[in-house]
């Protein structure tokens, strides 16, 4: 299936290559570079590029192109999903996934890749199995390794692959047994010029950090499971149980994982927690335009809106902007024409605003389009859909775990058209 993998950085250097079958010359990447040149931006490089003898499937993450070379028919999503899994694994191993980190840990990276695919077919992609095979580098371990000459490769052969619960290793031990669940909801919305909602939906995830001894069997139930319209589970969740009782029953993987992602149906009215008042106008006659935006809270259920960040892509003809914010800091990049305004907290008594003038290139006519405003924000302790976890029970182990649950609402792709 997957023949080879090339890692290409932003400047077009191939800094890592790995082959699972016969070696494919790196010159195959020339086709990729061609396509890259044709596409103006990195994200516009087509994920699938046919070449005379191979097909190049790529994903772009962390400013690195991961280019897989395949030779024959294979579902493209299979490869793409796998490549993303590779990136996730690197991130899991090294904390961040960047060119420098990969270069520094090239041996570990190589060993991990070797285990992930056999003859181009995924072999072990479950991070807990991989971590048993090849231990992730930590500062302590690096120090110890250099002194004692011991290794990152697990000397115990992993048993996880053989088990019915491949996502959990046996013999997990903790002194503090804890299970934390974060319910994070993101609002995707498009708000039109007049402030009415064109489309809004809520996408949520439950991320868990479970550090429990032994083989705990957890059940998590909701106060209002009906809210969840469409769900996708970590493989550990017993599907039948969900179908019949709407209860999440699972033997958790060890450590961090995404238990569930869900979608709250569009039929439910979505509360929009913030509004943006905007007045952006360009005049044909002069080369000056007016710019004024105000952000305010709308339906926040009494919670504070924090971490507000406004970004907007200005038209090409904008030369510069002279703005004064009532709070926070703002910046305008005259090259990319990107305006960003870090607002911070919204104080309902004194609404943050950003006012000023826009200077346009002389001689050009006014831009057709007003810029769209992208909004980011965070609301702690609130799940905007109203989803509530009812209880968490543990079976199969004796001790009493410490349980914690946190709610948070964030802006997803929150866009205001002007």
């Amino acid at each position, binding site marked *: 299936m997957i023949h080879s993998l090339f890692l290409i950085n932003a400047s077009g250097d191939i800094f890592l290559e790995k082959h699972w079958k016969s070696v494919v010359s790196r010159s195959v990447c020339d086709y990729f570079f061609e396509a890259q040149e044709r596409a103006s931006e990195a994200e516009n490089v087509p994920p699938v590029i046919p070449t005379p003898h191979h097909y190049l499937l790529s994903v772009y993450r962390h400013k690195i192109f991961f280019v897989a070379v395949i030779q024959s028919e294979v*579902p493209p*999503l299979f490869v*793409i999903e796998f490549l993303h899994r590779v990136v996730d694994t690197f991130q899991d191993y090294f904390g961040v996934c960047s060119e420098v980190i990969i270069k520094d840990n090239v041996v570990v990276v190589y*060993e991990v890749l070797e285990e992930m695919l056999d003859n181009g077919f995924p072999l072990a992609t479950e991070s807990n199995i991989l971590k048993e095979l090849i231990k992730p580098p930590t500062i302590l371990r690096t120090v110890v390794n250099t002194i004692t*000459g011991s290794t990152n490769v697990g000397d115990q052969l992993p048993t996880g*692959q053989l088990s019915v619960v491949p996502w959990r290793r046996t013999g997990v031990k903790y002194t503090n047994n804890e299970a934390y669940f974060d319910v994070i909801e993101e609002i995707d919305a498009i708000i039109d010029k007049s402030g009415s909602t064109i489309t809004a939906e809520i996408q949520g995830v439950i991320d868990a950090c479970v550090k429990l001894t032994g083989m705990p069997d957890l059940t998590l139930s909701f106060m209002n499971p009906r809210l969840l319209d469409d769900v*996708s589970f970590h493989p550990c969740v017993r599907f039948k149980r969900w179908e019949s009782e709407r209860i999440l029953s699972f033997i958790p993987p060890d450590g961090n994982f995404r238990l569930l992602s869900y979608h709250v149906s569009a039929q439910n009215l979505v509360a929009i927690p913030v509004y943006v008042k905007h007045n952006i106008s360009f005049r044909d006659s002069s080369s000056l335009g007016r710019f004024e935006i105000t952000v305010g809270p709308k339906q926040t259920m009494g919670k504070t809106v924090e971490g507000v960040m406004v970004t907007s892509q200005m038209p090409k003809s904008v030369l510069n902007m002279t703005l004064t914010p009532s709070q926070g800091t703002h910046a305008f990049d005259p090259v990319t024409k990107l305006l960003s305004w870090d607002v911070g907290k919204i104080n309902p008594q004194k609404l943050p605003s950003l006012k000023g003038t826009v200077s346009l290139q002389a001689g050009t006519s006014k831009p057709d389009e007003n810029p769209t405003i992208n909004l980011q924000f965070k609301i702690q302790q609130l799940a905007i859909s109203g989803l509530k976890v009812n209880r968490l029970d543990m079976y199969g182990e004796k001790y009493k775990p410490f349980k914690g649950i946190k709610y948070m609402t964030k802006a997803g792709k929150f866009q205001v058209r002007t």
Partner: protein
Amino acid sequence: MAASPAYGEEKGGSSSLGEPEYGHDPASGGIFSSDYKRHDDLKEMLDSNKDSLKLEAMKRIVAMIARGKNASDLFPAVVKNVACKNIEVKKLVYVYLVRYAEEQQDLALLSISTFQRGLKDPNQLIRASALRVLSSIRVPIIVPIMMLAIKEAASDMSPYVRKTAAHAIPKLYSLDSDQKDQLIEVIEKLLADKTTLVAGSVVMAFEEVCPERIDLIHKNYRKLCNLLIDVEEWGQVVIINMLTRYARTQFLSPNQNQESLLEENTEKAFYGSEEEDTKDAKAEAASMAKRKPYVMDPDHRLLLRNTKPLLQSRNAAVVMAVAQLYFHLAPKAEVGVIAKALVRLLRSHSEVQYVVLQNVATMSIKRRGMFEPYLKSFYIRSTDPTQIKILKLEVLTNLANETNISTILREFQTYIRSMDKDFVAATIQAIGRCATNIGKVRDTCLNGLVQLLSNRDELVVAESVVVIKKLLQMQPAQHSEIIKHMAKLTDNIQVPMARASILWLIGEYCEHVPKIAPDVLRKMAKSFTNEEDIVKLQVINLAAKLYLTNSKQSKLLTQYVLNLAKYDQNYDIRDRARFIRQLIVPTEKSGALNKYAKKLFLAQKPAPILESSFKDRDHFQLGSLSHLLNAKAVGYQELPDWPDEAPDPSVRNVEVPEWTKCTSREKRKEKVEKPFYSDSEGESGPTESADSEPESGSEENGSSSSSGSSSSGTEEEDEEEEEEDSGEQSEDKEEEEEEEEEEKRPKRKDKEGSHKAVLRTAGSPSEEEEEEGAKKSKKKALQGRKGRAETSSEASTSESSSSGSDSGSEAEAKQRKAPPSSKASSKEISLLDLDDFTPPPPQPIPSSSIISTSLVTDLEGLTLTDTSLTPTLLSPAFSAVKTYELLHRMAGEGLAVEYCFSRRPFPSDPHMVAVQIQISNNTDTEVKNLRVNEPKPLSGMRIQEFPEIEHLAPGDTATVVMGIDFCDSTQAANFQLCTHTRQFYVSIQPPVGELMAPVFMSENEFKKEQGKLMGMSEITEKLTLPEKCRSDHTIVQQVTSAANVGRVPCGASNEYRFAAKTVTSGSLVLITLERREGSSAQLTINSEKMVIGTMLVKDIIQALTQ
């Protein structure tokens, strides 16, 4: 080596080992030598005795490989370390070997013997990794060795090794495709494997080696469907894609005569996909009058049903695979379920979005209704990458219909003002398509587009012109105004395509604009020489048309244009001019065509149909690379058309060679079927342990290998076995010691010279090998005795040493003894064997379930006669005994414990529930002092421990009974299971039905008792009995299997009564099931214990309706 100078130079810069004085030497020879020298220190490190140095060297080498530098000249130095003890060094050597073996085939052979040794290792993971590396070395000479290794591994006990074997198959095939036939045999064997671990990999091998051998799938089809949910995600994708093709060849199209049904049934069918039976019945009834009804093959339904939950997978590839399966295989009415899942994927990374949107675009053309509810999910954000925007636009256009067009057009209006000009152009085209498809909005669209003509951006205008041209062609008469407007644009617009379009329009409809047309031609004639080719051609066209319609005004102009064209640089234009001049200008020479010139030029032209580029893509299997590229990719398997006549469905029936086998297989299958997800009680069956023994004929002489048969041994036999076992063990130890010595010897020799090792494997058998051979066969003999691999006869014939023949005879003796004991055991303990009569899992073979139910009732009769012995407490009214897992083999480090409720009274305390525990030792060491420790029961609960098991030999199984007083609650009893080394926390949770014991009473007594338990103590529930659960036998069987109750005779034929007493408190539990007309029924339970009553109602209904 041609490339190495270049590499060398590069290395000089980047590698810390570089020697600058050579790095700058322009002579290539110098660089070569520097290369040579540079690697010298690496070689030294590799040759040293210190592992840390070797490791450092290997790390540097791997880093070189990763950067794409050539490190092949280190091959001899590296390959020496293949037997290194340090595991990381070893792994890195493997990495190196796999990378360069192809280039250095001869040297690579040095390593083979190490892997061959690894293949025989007792540790399954080492066997697997040896096979993995061996098969990854692409050296054609070792093909026979690989073939042998694969064959051996395919019948390995460990499913992990078998999985590796499956992985190795495509590797060997790509190395030597002549091995196909042999490989197919291995694939066939592995396809029959029942473990989830193997399934995905072997299907992948099947797809790569012999995708055309669809006949291999028949027998495994149902198994694959049932295993699917527990296979790892990548395997799921491969299996689903393969099954899609399979289903297309084996089943009839579910949509062939549904058109007529669709109108009436859409709603119902859409929601009621679960209750297939009833729906199918309805559909049948409806279509009966019209034509031959379509009945979906149950196997077809099985596939659809078992793949549906996977739409919830977190893996986008799995979701897509299921979606395409539904699109290609499901009845139209059911395809809708995939839309939601696909829309969910749109939240993922942009690459995933890109692929999903391509597929959605194709689907939305065929099944527009499916995605209509999700229209807003395809709205475009300014932050989307352009390629995503354009695909979303495509989907929006496909979804447009009369009802939603106004909202879509409003969206489009905002898009047109976007800064992304490519996207704007695509939007204009999309508007054009909406206008052609939906007549209602054509005028609105046209007006909108005309307004765009005054846009400042030239690209926008040009695109609009092109689209307007197409639209106008549909109804030119009404739009002379627009044509006039466009004629004016020729002064400003510079985009050639747009200019050409305008000229064509004016030429085509010159009759509508008689005054303007010649004027345009005049202007164009002026600028002719500066125009683009495409425009020039249209100018000639316009001139010709005008000449034909209005020759008076345009004759001279036409002549002028034609003359200009005659001397044009482009030969196309010169040709065109010459051709047109001949055609339209009448001369004495001009032929017959002249008369038809007008007809030729001014014929009615069909309006172009604006259609999606995704229109015909669905002949490619969706989700495939070929579909994405809209071109057949290498290795693409065509999706076959539905057959007209369904092939024989019976090929998928799995025939059963003999009765005992069948039952054991059935049992296994059940186990396999519900490993993780299926049971809420967490019965995660050991999927792999179930068939770790090979299914050869020699199975019988293995008395203690599998868990099933052995436990039924009588005490007598047990004793004997123990004796024998201990004997074996001591022998084993000796054997091992010898073995160890044996192993040390070759290792020493390895160090002397690895060349010799190669000679040995390849060449004539030396003394040593003979010795080794003897050892091997001796070991084999032992194994044979244990029933693992070989038959004893083989062992004894190949044997020369005394101990060997000894073992052979011993084994034979045992073989003789085995049959009678097994017979005896089947009589002795009915409980476990009755297990075998469990009706098979719901769908697959309805016929066999009939047999088993009748057997069931026969046996029930038998037990009823037994009642005389125990008048009040009935010994178990027959029912299937379910086994539950107490300790999984993995969690228990080789110790597997299962329990079942034997439904016998616990002898020492009548208030206790007897729990039969079966412990099997799968480790290779003896387990001692197996006992229950520190029971920590909840308040009131009591546990009567089973007597300590002092020894449990490897591979042995022991069955014990313990009593638990659950206090009539379903709380779990927790305790520790201890061995001499470890302790395991386990818990037993009883189903409510096991908390009672059957009671015998007459009908009158029953009625009397029931009268006392009315009101609060009565729970009534209505239910619908499924078709297969309407016979008396089945109902009785289902109830008695759900709960340990006794049947009470009953006068009415449509009523069933059962009675039981809870074990601890002895409160009565009375069950009445009354059948009403049709399939409805009413279940009444009378019991003081309301909690038990409610739970029991639930359990029984579940048992009856599933």
